[in-house]
């Protein structure tokens, strides 16, 4: 087919460009601006080239918080994805139970991040919190403000509580879209429950699970408010994940250059991981 060239078509694209520029590119550019320069205020800037990037890439502090970040994200994905699928599988498929379960499941998702942090902080306090006090009464030496293991345990538990529902809801939607005929066909074949899960349900849920993993990866990799309110990154730097460390550097120490460089590196890691993951998951998709 012959296409007519008409440059006026660009006018239709301009609004999108303007919108994206305002909500993404312009704010990002200010960060880029800081990442390559040194400033002492009064609008005085000095060119530093890639110095801040080199500094961050070689900094042990960055390596440590990046390591903590990957560990945290890996653990919560490892717990939330299987747990979410398992809960979705046990949810009722029809009847009055469906809306009840859906409302109950969405509750944690509706609570603001800082409220979740504050709630869990009070809930887990070793002397007066229900969780903390109970654990100590049962004979566990539990104190999330002092002990690294306890701080991690509480942070992970909080995130699992807050976000597993998202995986549940997505998986449930995926399961609901499987036509009953698939289950009947499997029943006629005499397939086991496990075979139905691995051969029908999982492949049919692949797309929603990809979305669930991507969302949970991005969200948990950028987690800030909840651990900030719960542990403040402590004890020491034990739960100082990337964004907590970043804010400390940018607003605590006012090292704007290195902080800007770190932001960009942070951003590219998220982008890269998402792209690699998405490409791998969708590699074998046919032309549906």
């Amino acid at each position, binding site marked *: 087919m012959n296409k007519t060239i008409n440059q006026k078509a660009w006018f239709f694209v301009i609004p999108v460009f303007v919108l994206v520029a305002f909500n993404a590119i312009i704010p990002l550019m200010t960060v880029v601006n800081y990442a390559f320069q040194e400033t002492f205020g009064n609008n005085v800037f000095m060119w530093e080239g890639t110095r801040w990037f080199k500094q961050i890439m070689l900094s042990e502090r960055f390596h440590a918080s990046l390591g903590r970040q990957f560990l945290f994200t890996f653990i919560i994905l490892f717990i939330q994805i299987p747990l979410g699928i398992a809960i979705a599988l046990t949810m009722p498929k029809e009847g009055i139970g469906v809306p009840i379960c859906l409302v109950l499941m969405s509750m944690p998702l509706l609570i603001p991040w800082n409220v979740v942090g504050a709630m869990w902080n009070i809930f887990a306090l070793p002397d007066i919190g229900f969780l903390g006090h109970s654990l100590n009464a049962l004979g566990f030496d539990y104190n999330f403000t002092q002990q690294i293991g306890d701080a991690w345990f509480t942070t992970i538990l909080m995130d699992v509580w807050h976000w597993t529902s998202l995986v549940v809801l997505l998986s449930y939607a995926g399961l609901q879209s499987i036509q009953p005929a698939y289950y009947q066909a499997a029943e006629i074949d005499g397939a086991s429950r496990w075979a139905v899960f691995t051969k029908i349900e999982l*492949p049919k849920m692949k797309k929603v699970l990809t979305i669930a993993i991507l969302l949970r990866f991005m969200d948990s990799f950028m987690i800030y408010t909840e651990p900030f309110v719960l542990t403040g990154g402590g004890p020491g730097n034990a739960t100082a994940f990337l964004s907590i460390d970043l804010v400390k550097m940018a607003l605590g120490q006012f090292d704007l250059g290195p902080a800007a460089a770190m932001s960009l590196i942070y951003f590219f890691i998220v982008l890269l991981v998402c792209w690699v993951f998405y490409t791998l998951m969708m590699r074998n998709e*046919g032309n549906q």
Partner: protein
Amino acid sequence: MSLELKNVEKKIGLDTHIYPTNLKLEKNTINILLGPTLSGKTTLMQIMAGLDKPTNGEIWFNEKNVTGMKVQKRNVSMVYQQFINYPNFTVYDNIASPLKITGVSSDEIKQRVGKVAELLKLSAMLNKKPNELSGGQQQRTALARALVKDSDLILLDEPLANLDFKLREELREELPKLFEDRDCIVVYATTEPSEALLLGGNTATLLEGKVIQYGKTLNVYNKPNSLVSAQVFSDPPMNITKIKKSGESCSFLDNSVNWKTKINIKDGEYKVGIRPHNITTYKEGNNSLEIKGKVLISELSGSESLIHFTRGNLNWVSLSNGVFQKNVGDEMKLYMNADEFIYFDENERLVING
């Protein structure tokens, strides 16, 4: 081998989905469940397969009561309207799946899958996944899965409904051959009368959860036991008009059309069913009657012309061979063959000659 439904009834809550039904299907037959959507075809099939339990009544297979027996133990296979295959398996593994579970040796699996794949023209795509195939090929794969094991009962629930016209025609022609020398009972649900006629065998006409009539397909078509059965087995819908009979002469109630009949029934008022293809733009048969009508819609279907027309306040449908284009609103003459009329009494039961 036979499958027998004895007083089978299905209720869900207060709704009756299947009214008490008796049906006996014999070995080596194709049995067509013909009825519009929601007439209970799928429910009836699921009860036959053992996927669903009847509320009342019994299912007997080979003189054995199998009511409530699990579907895995019943040796049945089923093909659905949607193309149901394991999404992550290749075509080969999909076809082999029912055999693998029952523990057939791998050599035998290979041989049997190869044979069925060839029969269904799938040999070239055994290594592909279902989502790489066309709809027709996906449904062929599902059919192959149903045929690969020697089922006693094969159920096909509108298998061609989701295919486009050309693929449907193609597969429809192959279907009877697939079941030819199989030692099994085939049950085939469809909404299309033409499909039932093409497949032959036996037909049960269904409406609103009731089996209206069961018998040899041609018999059910030619001698519908009631007006309802005739209507289910007629597409486009059958024309119905009231007539009166006195001696040998019959006429429409308004006396506009008169004819002689040899049918030996007592005098009085009747309803007459006239199939659309029995009203044509040309004369057919020895007892041709002329009627006049006003064209409502005129449409072509392949090389047939479908003309809807009004007569008085009744809408009529005619189906003629050949291509005729009529203008809406035109007055036109059409011809009916009075020998093909089907007579029903005041209870809408077939009036039996003699």
